[in-house]
């Protein structure tokens, strides 16, 4: 348990992830779902960034030609976060445009109403 408090940054990252997950599950508005997904993404970035951090070391940019690995933090998670950010931006853009299309068709962003409208349309076809 004390290890949980010592790893507080990872714990906060995963709590953020869970908050985003719950937003995704319990909100009916499409835009809120989208925000929940972005919160989930932020949790993942924070988790990755905190995995690479080591106390007392500096960012992995070579200073004065010092190449000893004991001076710099782990550069691999930093390069992995980049992929995550790019994918999240793309997914957000595509989801936004899909929501716009849905709004134009059904004049609402509430998923339940959209389902109801789609179902009644199917029944009446």
């Amino acid at each position: 348990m004390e290890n949980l408090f010592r790893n507080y940054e990872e714990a906060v990252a995963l709590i953020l992830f869970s908050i985003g997950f719950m937003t995704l599950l319990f909100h009916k508005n499409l835009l809120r779902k989208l925000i929940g997904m972005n919160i989930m993404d932020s949790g993942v970035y924070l988790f990755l960034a905190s995995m690479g951090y080591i106390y007392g070391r500096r960012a992995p940019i070579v200073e004065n030609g010092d190449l000893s690995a004991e001076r710099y933090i782990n550069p691999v998670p930093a390069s992995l976060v980049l992929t995550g950010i790019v994918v999240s931006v793309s997914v957000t853009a595509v989801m936004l445009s899909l929501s716009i299309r849905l709004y134009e068709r059904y004049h609402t962003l509430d998923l339940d109403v959209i389902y109801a409208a789609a179902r009644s349309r199917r029944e009446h076809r």
Partner: protein
Amino acid sequence: MSIRDKLSALLGFDIDFDAPVPPRKTETAAEQTPDEWRFSRRIMRAGGRRLGAIYKILGVICSVVLMSTLLLTVAGMPRYGVDQEYMDTVTYEYISHGMEYTGAVNIVSGIILEYRAFDTLGESFVLFCAVSCVLALLRADGADSEPERVEYRDISCDPILRRTMRAVVPIVLLYGAYVLLFGHLSPGGGFSGGAVIGAALIMIASAYGEDVSGRILTERVFKTVTTCALSFYCLGKSYTFYTGANGLHSVIGNGTPGNILSAGLIMPLNVAVGMVVACTIYGMYRMIGQRRF
């Protein structure tokens, strides 16, 4: 035997190319009769209440289980910020030999544009695909279905905004160019620099309104710049991969680490990626915010 006959034989039924295309249904939910609405609402309410309760209980259980599993995992992980055993040989290799092999002072930049260059190319293509999807989804498809304009408060005539933008935008653009060009020497790189430049373009567009923002980046310019940048990335990286894998001499040297013209292709590739990112972000803003390029 004509192409049409061949196709028909292949598919097993006759194709009529000249048949008129059925008109697209442009019915919206608002056009449905109120009766239909009430009917579907009633179905939703009758089945929905019980289902909704079950859904909520299951959702809470699911979230609690997920959260406790994740937190248990964190409790079992190595301590935060202490020298970790998962800092393995790959990391040591990157730090101690990265500058020598790639010529980049910024080790992360060296990783993403030399060791993992293929991955970065994939990321650029993900962005490109996303903006293509946005274009395909939001483009007004024909004269008959001009999207209804959503009324939003036009802030573009605000003199305070314009003054501020006139002062701020050049600085932001300069900063973006700096981050792009010094990506191999200092924090930054193609994606972050491109995002800054894209933000500056969005600032101009929001301060100066429709007529100016349509002229900053027309669709033609967007296509040309994106395609050229991605092709340059492909060709340049193919060359270095080919020479590197076959032990051939490459004309692109690493130079002296720390100089602006060093680190082989990293700086041009950063600029190419930055172009793609800036165009993509501005294109997404235009398409999502104003529904036209």
